[in-house]
Each structure stands twice: as C-alpha cells, then as structure tokens.
C-alpha cells in the first residue's frame, strides 16, 4: 500500500490561510489503512482546524467527507454538485489522489494534507516500512525476495557495501542491511553461487528515470 504521514499542523494552517469554506477530504484506501487519511483522521483534523480558526477569531466552515478512492474518476464524481461551494479542498489522500481530484475540478484548489512517503507494508501495529520503489523491472527472483533497490540505502546490486556492519546499514544502526538479509537467504537455500554472479547495471528506463509511466490495456477500454 501507499504510506503517508500527516503534514505538520502549522503547515496545514498556513496553507489554508486564504480560505474560509474548506472541505477536508479523506480516502478510504491506503491512507485509511496507514491511519493518516481515513474518515477518522478527517474528523480529527477538521476539528483541529475549527478550533484553531476559532481561537484565531477567523470565521471558517469546515466540512468533512471521505471518498472510496480519490484515484478513480468514478468516486470523484460524488463531489460534482458540492465542490463548487468550497474555497478549497484539503485532501488527505496520497499525491495521486490530490492531483487527480485537482485535474477533475480545475476551479477548486486542492491542497495536500499529507506527505506521501512510500510503498510499503505494516510490519506491526503502528509501524510501516518501505518495500518497493516501482522500478518497473522486478529483480526479486534474483535477490531472494528482498529488494536491493528499495532496502539498500545505495540501491546497489552487488552488495554489501563497506559500510554494512553487524548486519546493519551504515546510515542507521536500526536499519537492516539489505545485502546482509539477501546473503543470509542465499546461505539458507544453499545458493551462494547466485551471490557470486555479478548483476549487471540496471536498465532504469522502466523506473521514474524513463519519464512518467503509463499502462494501457486497450482490451479493457469501454
């Protein structure tokens, strides 16, 4: 899923300064699962904004709504009749939702209430970590199911680098060294021969480096 962090409250308040009629808009997908942009968080943030505006003596109307998804036109249509009554929408969706909503309703400013951080997993309650960078050319079959692009701070393909220490990464002693993990699995599965193979330079053209990506399935078009 996509993981996000809520923006600092003061930054949100500053962003909303020019507006009086605000819609705080949640998304029922990833940001709900990572507890940053679902209906519950929308309610909390909307209350916080109301209280701050009241304390500051600024008349404000803050409404709340949560869509099933903000990255699908189908659900964005639900706002068709109401969005015109707001000065701005504060979206708690990931960057995709914020942009897509803004594209659909070009007359209303759509502002980001969260910082989209990574594609990851819930390791345990309240703890999410990154697993994939969407490089467009998966190598997990060669690296024992552990992604060096994402989990190595240097995205190196022939690790571990000289900074790996006691199985940890040089940048953070709490961060496992991806190559340490990969080698442990090579050993467990008796595949150290695979470790000895030099992985050639990656073709990054399928990643962000190749420009914005798209996927087209003509057979699915209506």
């Amino acid at each position: 899923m996509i993981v996000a962090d809520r923006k600092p409250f003061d930054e949100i308040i500053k962003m909303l300064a020019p507006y009086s009629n605000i819609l705080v808009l949640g998304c029922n997908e990833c940001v709900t699962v990572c507890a940053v942009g679902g209906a519950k968080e929308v309610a909390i943030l909307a209350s916080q904004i109301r209280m701050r505006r009241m304390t500051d003596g600024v008349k404000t109307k803050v409404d709340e709504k949560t869509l099933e998804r903000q990255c699908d036109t189908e659900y964005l249509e639900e706002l068709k009749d109401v969005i015109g009554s707001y000065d701005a929408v504060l979206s708690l969706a990931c960057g995709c939702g914020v942009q897509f909503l803004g594209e659909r309703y070009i007359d209303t400013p759509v502002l980001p209430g969260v910082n989209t951080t990574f594609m990851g997993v819930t390791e345990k309650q309240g703890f999410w970590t990154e697993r994939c960078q969407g490089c467009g050319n998966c190598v997990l079959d060669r690296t024992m199911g552990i992604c060096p692009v994402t989990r190595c701070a240097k995205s190196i393909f022939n690790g571990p680098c000289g900074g790996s220490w006691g199985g940890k990464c040089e940048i953070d002693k709490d961060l496992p060294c991806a190559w340490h993990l990969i080698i442990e699995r090579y050993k467990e599965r008796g595949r150290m021969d695979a470790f000895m193979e030099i992985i050639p330079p990656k073709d990054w053209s399928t990643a962000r480096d190749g420009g914005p990506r798209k996927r087209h399935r003509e057979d699915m078009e209506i």
Partner: protein
Amino acid sequence: MSTQGNLERVLRSGGFVVTAECGPPRGVAPDMIRKKGEMLKGYVDAVNVTDNQTAVVRMSSLASSVILKDMGIDPVMQMVCRDRNRIAIQSDVLGAAALGIKNILCLSGDHQRFGDHKGAKNVFDIDSVQLIQCIKGMRDDGRFLSGEEVKPGPSIFIGCVENPCIEPLEIRAMRLAKKTSAGAQFCQTQCVFNLGSFERWMEMVRQLHLHEKVSIIAGVTPLRSVGMANYMKKNVPGMDVPDELIDRLKGVPKEKTSEEGIRICVETIERLMGIEGVRGIHIMAIGWEDVVPEIVKLAGLYPRP
C-alpha cells in the same frame, strides 16, 4: 604516452608498494594539494586522492589528481558512484585518462547522510562492482556500457577497496572475488587495526587464490591520540579498533601518545609485510600527512624503488 603508472610499475616489478592518501581541500586551494604532494613525494609510489569522502564537498578528485600528476606523482583517482550516473562516470574516465591519470579506485561512496549536504539526491546508477566492469570494458573491449565503441579506450589500472575487518569475513573475501572477476587489479583495504581479523581474511583470500590475481594493499592509519582512536571506533562505519590498541595508547604519558601511535603503525606494517599475499601498504594519515615519511623510514621502506 606511457601506458603504465608508477604504482603498476612497482607492483609488476614485484616490489612492495607504499601509497598514501591526500584529501583535497574545501576551497580553491591548489597549493594545499601541492604542499601535501611535496611532503609525500619520494616516500610513496602513488598518492590516493579521495572523491568527496564522507560526502563532504571538496575539490574534485580529478582536478586534484592532475595537480599531483603535474608534480611527477602518480595519483590514484578515487571515483564513487554516489554523485554521478553512468554517463558522467564514463565521461570522467575518458577525461582522467586524457589528462594522464593512470589509476582509478572504484568505490560505492559514503552515503550523503554523513556529509554536509544531507538533503542531496544520491545517484548510485551503478555500483562499485559494475564501475570496475565498466572501466574494464572501456579499456579492454573498447566499449561503453551501452555497447557503443570507445575510440580510443582509456588505459587505466583498476583498483577496488574492501573491508577486511568486518564480519562476516567470508563475505568480504567473496566480494573481493566478485570485484576481481569484474576486473579489479589492485585492492586497497580499509584501515587494519585488528591484525587477527585481517590475517583470517587474508587466509580466505589465499584459499580463493585472489592474491594471485589482485594486488592487496593493506590500509594503515597512525593513531594520533586516544580521542581519535575512540572516535574512529565509535563513529566511522566499518572501523574495528581493538580495545588493546586504545589501552596501549592510554598507557603512555599524553605527550608520548602520538609517538606510540607511530610505533603501533610501524609494528602493524612489519606484521603486514610478513603476510603472504600482501603486496603493499596504504597509509591513511588523516590530517597528519607529515608523519608519512617518518613511518615509511621507520618501516624500512625508504628509499622507494
């Protein structure tokens, strides 16, 4: 133009090489490099020039190497993968070779988190093993990574680094095997303080017959003070400074600490010289370059061939 640098010449003649390190300045101060060069000239066979080490901005490794080269010193230009993609890397390899640089040392590079521009975007388009392969391909096959022709290719003596003192040691030996098969011709090691660990690593290196294919140059660093030893132990990634060494430094009066540090370094070199497969030493006297001539003389490695 001669295709062989001094480092390669001494190694090929079977000599025990001595190299030292020169960190470029944090400003337009070519004289600072010349001063370090003068200090080292005649005492070492080549001078290793760091490439924005610890991700702190310094004068480029290429420019600094050329300044040393113009003084008649054989520079070992470090090249890290952190700051340049394959286009810039190959372009710099061509530029370095055109300016007479004979040796390139390939490294991944310290993460920018350690440096003075923590918000920088890193590159790591290719890694150090792929960099070795890339330079070898340009030199031996006359091909860029893209497969296009390099006309003419660069004549470069290719180096790598390895850390012989971090566990698991067998992985470090195997990684050297990877670098060797990629094309590394010499290997400079991280500072050796833990000789026991280094000896175990060398044993693995010999078992894999790597010492026959790649010249191992063991890194040494004279410890100037107890504070420096503690700092390196705690803060430098991958640095193994045994407590016995720190205790030994603590055991002498403060004004004698640096002298003791030099003594430890010379003893280390003597031990390293006796290890089968060690082809030289690389003295990394960080911020204490003027001590290098004394160490070289005390170790009986002066004059240079």
